[in-house]
């Protein structure tokens, strides 16, 4: 492979993407910074009913909502009197490939089939690969999954190794790469060579597919309890889970339900580092994705990311690796549900947030995921020990990503850390304003767009623009 071919392929990125997604993103541009987000989603032609119908035909969705009565009782042992909200979980592990990612993949597979693509491809190391492979199998489409899978020593991340196996079980080709962002380059080669549909995690199809999750859980809670949940919490990485779920809640009429995002704190570990790769113990749902994707969603493989989490987040918390492993054990031990662990990130956060809320209030943890060899606390912690990470019981505040995984000694120690949403919003605005093309000025349309992007008023945006201009001068 020559250097020239790297540049040649990267130069063709826009054309390859347009052909492989079939969306003309340009036409949604409304200003130097703004674009018509809702039109981009609406133009797919799929409304909520159509999507529910498509998903039901491939056994996706309609997953059980489980009340976690024992975990709620455990919350109340560490809560003030009158506190300790009811915890529910949407058992998304019941989807065909074992996670909510089937919802994201289903519409892409349907669209690819409808438009006559010979197959679908995705660049993903996680559950999404298995979901795409599973949906492709059902639709009779070819499938290629490109994974970042092993470090320069050839050591595979156990969770990703399990995904390799699952994808191969569904009959997909799995191209496994060593660590580095140039995975995208290889993905472009694959798309160009095969003419496959790009089942990107960030197209409108992917996000619309998740709306059914938020919608279903709102309807399920309402049917059972006569009202909507007070708070829904989603594990947050690229932003799709938060975006799609929140949109579905709104479509169900649960507009007052608070949307909380939760990520595993992996601060200090570099996402493109060969050394750090196998010291993460979590391959998704962590701050290495959620922070950059919240503050600049368009950093992805499509020109306009349909996952725009700051539009929907009311609160964003982080938990430690040790806390998630602890909650994974708890879920199995007292609820009889062996799930996760990465999908239990939001559960760990929900456990602590339930302590702040009144007993009558309802929290829904909106996903579980299947578990198995490699994709399990044992596989992850055995690797962590092998990599020299200190695994011990203690105060989770002593957890240090890549150095120490501290498993709580008591449920009262689980304490999420608040992410400063204001800081994230300002970071988003800074990046947006820095991207303003030379000679262009911010329009009124842009200001309205930016306010919607970060869920603030226009005054907030105007003040940020003024401050940005002052700094430039």
């Amino acid at each position: 492979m020559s250097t020239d071919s790297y540049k040649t392929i990267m130069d063709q990125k826009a054309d390859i993407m347009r052909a492989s997604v079939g969306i003309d993103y340009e036409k949604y541009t409304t200003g130097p910074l703004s674009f018509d987000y809702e039109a981009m989603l609406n133009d797919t032609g799929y409304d909520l009913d159509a999507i529910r119908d498509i998903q039901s035909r491939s056994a996706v969705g309609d997953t059980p909502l489980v009340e976690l009565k024992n975990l709620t009782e455990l919350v109340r042992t560490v809560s003030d009197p009158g506190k300790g909200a009811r915890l529910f979980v949407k058992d998304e592990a019941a989807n065909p490939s074992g996670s909510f990612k089937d919802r994201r993949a289903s519409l892409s597979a349907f669209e690819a089939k409808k438009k006559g693509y010979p197959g679908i491809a995705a660049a993903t190391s996680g559950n999404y690969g298995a979901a795409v492979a599973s949906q492709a199998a059902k639709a009779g489409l070819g499938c290629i999954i490109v994974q970042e899978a092993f470090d320069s020593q050839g050591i595979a991340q156990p969770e990703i190794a399990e995904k390799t196996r699952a994808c191969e079980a569904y009959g997909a080709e799995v191209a496994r790469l060593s660590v580095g962002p140039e995975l995208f380059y290889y993905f472009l080669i694959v798309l160009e060579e095969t003419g496959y549909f790009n089942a990107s995690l960030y197209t409108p199809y992917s996000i619309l597919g998740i709306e059914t999750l938020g919608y279903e859980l709102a309807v399920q809670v309402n049917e059972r309890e006569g009202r909507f949940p007070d708070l829904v919490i989603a594990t947050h990485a690229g932003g799709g889970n938060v975006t799609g779920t929140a949109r579905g809640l709104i479509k169900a009429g649960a507009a007052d339900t608070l949307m909380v995002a939760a990520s595993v704190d992996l601060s200090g570990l570099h996402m493109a580092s060969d050394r750090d790769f196998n010291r993460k113990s979590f391959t998704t749902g962590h701050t290495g994705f959620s922070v950059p994707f919240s503050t600049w969603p368009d950093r992805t493989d499509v020109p306009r990311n349909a996952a725009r989490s700051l539009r929907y987040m009311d609160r964003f918390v982080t938990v430690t690796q040790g806390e998630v492993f602890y909650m994974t054990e708890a879920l199995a031990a007292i609820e009889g549900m062996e799930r996760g662990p990465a999908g239990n990130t939001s559960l760990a956060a929900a456990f602590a947030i339930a302590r702040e809320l009144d007993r009558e209030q309802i929290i829904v943890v909106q996903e579980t995921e299947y578990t198995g060899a490699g994709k399990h606390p044992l596989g992850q912690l055995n690797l962590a020990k092998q990599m020299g990470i200190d695994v011990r019981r203690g105060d989770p505040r002593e957890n240090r990503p890549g150095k120490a995984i501290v498993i709580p000694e008591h449920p009262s120690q689980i304490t999420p850390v608040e992410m400063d949403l204001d800081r994230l919003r300002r970071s988003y605005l800074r990046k947006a304003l820095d991207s303003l093309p030379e000679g262009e000025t911010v329009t009124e349309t842009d200001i309205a767009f930016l306010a919607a992007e970060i869920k603030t008023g226009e005054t907030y945006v105007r003040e940020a623009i003024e401050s940005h201009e002052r700094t430039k001068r």
Partner: protein
Amino acid sequence: MERAVKNTWVEIGAVILEKDQRAPNLPDDTKQVPLEMRVKGFLLHDAEIGAEAEIITPSGRTVRGTLTGINPEYTHMFGRPIPELSPIAGEIRAILRERRNAS
């Protein structure tokens, strides 16, 4: 040298980008190593481990590389129980038992 016959399920590897061809702005440790790829498929001809080989993948692509594995094993596993996790189930059940006995 281990040899695989045509039509065997194998893994091949290839360097996709040499060190000096990699993207700018990589962390120093990643800069020091090439970008490698491994993929599995059915061997199109007899070949030895370490030799050039061509495969057809499950999606029907023909890919060329170095033969790295013959019917390669899935090696990910649960491994030993983790002593730091083993007591948790008992601890949590005891907390609930205590609460239920008290009420």
